[in-house]
């Protein structure tokens, strides 16, 4: 079984003729992903990277069979691009675009929920099932197939940690970024649920960041459900200066300070293996595995 993307994925690229859209369409094709169509308003009936381009998602689907999309369109148009994909029944919808207005994302996520569509991002590196397909901008060569599910709030740090795992001979089942924008589709808890039910995933790595409460929510979920698979985590930002705080209400609503130390502490309390630096993760996972075998 492959989570979200795999050999079965037939994807559209929305914003395929832009600089980033075109470049990464090439890299996704090179990785073996089936990119079957592109959409750019006004560029219909042209071809980009050998892929036919359409003006709308609906018109693409009249000609071509597709089941997923990746969005590169600029932030002011991202909400509508997402809705267009949802209306067309594409699922998952991966949104690479960053810095989308919070109000737009809020409305888009509500629309996705109503249509039972999975949104990855915005501001995500995307999703990769190593050895099968990637819908994203991550460098494919740092990943290798295996049993670790990786979910991250950061883009580049995901590549960093995947590359440590790969060098240590630890492969990954699926790696995805939940997205760096304030409002995202999937969160850590959603991804933990997916990895729990995924037979190809043996253990999970969570890569967190200062701010918000995604890590605390994940920790609570792990504790409440007696999560059946080992989880390891790294939280970036111990040495970072205190981040943006949204007045009183921000602190109140998360119920936490949002610091890296507080998040790491909460993870430790619920039995998550916490790495001080990213390079420690492979060792933690190997120790865990050894301990499981002994028992």
């Amino acid at each position, binding site marked *: 079984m492959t989570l979200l993307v795999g050999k079965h994925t037939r994807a559209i690229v929305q914003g395929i003729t832009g600089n*980033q859209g075109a470049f990464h369409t090439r*890299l996704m094709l090179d990785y073996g992903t089936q990119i079957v169509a592109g959409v750019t308003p006004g560029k219909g009936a042209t071809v980009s990277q050998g892929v036919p381009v359409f003006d709308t998602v609906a018109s693409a689907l009249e000609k071509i069979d597709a089941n997923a999309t990746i969005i590169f369109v600029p*932030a*002011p148009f991202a909400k509508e691009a997402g809705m267009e994909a949802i209306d067309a029944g594409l699922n998952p919808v991966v949104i*690479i675009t960053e*810095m*989308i*207005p*919070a*109000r737009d994302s*809020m*409305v888009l*996520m*509500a*629309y996705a929920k109503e249509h039972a569509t999975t949104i990855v991002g915005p501001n995500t*590196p995307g999703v990769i099932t190593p050895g099968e397909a990637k819908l994203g*901008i*991550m*460098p494919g060569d*740092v990943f290798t197939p295996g049993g670790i599910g990786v979910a*991250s*709030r*950061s*883009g*580049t*740090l*995901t*590549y*960093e940690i995947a*590359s440590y795992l790969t060098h240590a001979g630890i492969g990954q089942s699926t790696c995805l970024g939940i997205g*760096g*924008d*304030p*409002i995202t589709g999937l*969160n850590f808890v959603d991804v933990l649920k997916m990895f729990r039910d995924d037979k190809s995933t043996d253990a999970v790595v969570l890569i967190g*960041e200062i701010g*918000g*409460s*995604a890590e605390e929510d994940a920790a609570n979920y792990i504790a409440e459900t007696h999560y059946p698979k080992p989880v390891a985590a790294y939280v*970036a*930002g*111990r*040495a*970072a*200066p205190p981040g943006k*705080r*949204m*007045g*009183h*209400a921000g*602190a*109140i*609503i*998360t*119920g936490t300070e949002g610091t*890296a130390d507080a998040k790491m502490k909460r993870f430790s309390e619920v039995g998550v293996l916490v790495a*001080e*630096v*990213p*390079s420690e993760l492979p060792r933690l996972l190997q120790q865990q595995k050894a301990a499981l075998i002994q028992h």
Partner: protein
Amino acid sequence: MKLFEYESKSLAQNLGINTPRGGLASTPDEARDIHKRIGGEVVIKAQVLVAGRGKAGGIKFGSKPEETRDRASEILSMTIKGEKVKKVLIEQKLNIKKELFGSIVLDRANKCQTVLASDQGGIDIEDVAKQSPEKILHHRLDPVFGMRGYDARQVGLKLGYTGQRLNSLTDLLSNLYRLSVIYDAELVESNPLVETNDGKFVTADLRVIVDDNSLFRHPEFQERAKEASGEVTPLEAKARENGLAFVELDGDIGIMGNGAGLVMATLDMVNHYGGKPANFCDVGGGANAEHVATALQIIQGDQKVSRIFINILAGITRCDEVAKGIVDVKKVVGLKKPLVVRMQGTNFEEGKRILNSIGITTLEKMDEAAQLVVASKVA
């Protein structure tokens, strides 16, 4: 983008939200004249973007215009949590029956806006939230339909109001919500939100934070967004003008990387090996050569930087573009500080070749590079 109290109140007044009568002063004499105009007793409030000005002495009272001038003079010479006070707001002192707390905040976890309210407003609201969280009312708003009249009424009812007062409070909450929609605010917060003795609700304080990602559709904030706020150092202001996410720190190792998470992890790792970062600098995803060159020049121009660690793990960014940026700096102004470059990912072979051609070796592992830059002797 945080707005000052006086800016927030001016937006509120346009929507018919009650604010105390008053005026803005930059000098003690202006403060005195405003007091003369509005009469009665006044409150003098420092206009700063940092929170906690009350406890820092940034709020004082004046019963006569001359006294107001003296208090304003004191406040105008203050620096609150590193932010110099440049203006004071002079407002009529309200006849307070009760101090409430009311806010509409972007609720990331629930992907909606949520109303937070309490009948125990005032400067100790954070203590209330910590010690008795049940005294803070949470009311989630539908992300598509927003605040409906009955949402606001329900909040007012829970705060203990009925009859005409409930209607007044409902109107005020609805207008605060309207403000959040019109200006794409991630926070609208009134604390205290005052119930006066004559039955009115007035936003005695008001804070608005505009969602930075929405600024492109708000020409009314364009000029304001360019002004450096009191919380930004000159170096940070320069970097941000050039589109860099930049925070100045007090160490000596200049840091540049792509992606906030990676740069944060870089700071963590440099710290872990005993080094002290001089800054946080994220060139962002997809940075081109020019952007990298600008960042490098800003970092190497910082006096306290003794050496620089460039940490690139390219996805949407391309190593060859980063390398070209470094080459450009070498050609145009020269490389002024020792560099440690770590590169991996998209087009890394090409990036490595370009840097090797100007005599710079690149490393592939972040750990090794971090250890090298921490251990390297300053040239």
